[in-house]
């Protein structure tokens, strides 16, 4: 999986490929500095995200809770249909902000 991070007041995380148990470990390492950094809004761009397992879902929850705790926002955009189905099955679509 490829992780691209564009830091700023609005930080954009672009994921390309598969967010599984193993690649989630890589993303988790990137999340902590973002949550402790200057970002007031974090956007996850899922245009090229093709797969997500529960380990990845857990990180979405971490981002959502972490940003909310510091008074910021977290939202997802360009989520593909197959991934959206997983978010719906797990009820994540109702607790995350998805554009």
């Amino acid at each position, binding site marked *: 999986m490829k992780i691209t991070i564009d830091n700023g007041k609005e930080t954009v995380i672009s994921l390309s490929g598969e967010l*599984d*148990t*193993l690649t989630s470990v890589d993303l988790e390492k990137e999340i902590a500095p973002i949550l402790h950094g200057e970002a007031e809004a974090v956007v996850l761009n899922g245009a090229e995200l*093709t*797969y997500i*397992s*529960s*380990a990845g*879902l*857990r990180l979405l*929850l*971490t981002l*959502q*809770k972490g940003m*909310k705790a510091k008074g910021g926002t977290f939202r997802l955009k360009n989520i593909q249909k*197959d991934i959206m189905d*997983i978010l719906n*099955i*797990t*009820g994540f679509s109702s*607790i995350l902000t998805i554009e």
Partner: protein
Amino acid sequence: MTNTLIIKNELEQLTRLYAFLDRQAVTYGLEELQLMQVKLALEEAVTNVILYAYPDKKDQDIRIDMSYENKRLTIVITDTGTDFNPLERQEPDLTLSLEERPIGGLGIYLVKQLMTEVTYSRSAGKNILTMTKDMH
């Protein structure tokens, strides 16, 4: 015909599992969405075994048998670890708000949702999880 993969109880071994499934999916002619759903169920079920079946023990075997007949995919995951029925785990409450929702506990729920049937049995000191998915 059944194809078999035996992996050790380490998360790094998941890459072998993914490769095994990819090969079988080509043989079976699975569609992209079907493959994605099966991969997710398989990853969740096997990760569960890797993390919990053998507490504090390394170099233990996990066996995955896969077959495809009459448009039905059957996957059997066998381990000789501690007696544990993952299907008895309490299902996550999907209606909980963000603050109330515990992080985790979704894996087996996903397995049940994505596969047609999932059964567990304990026999001769083995945990046997059987998952089937009808491909129509």
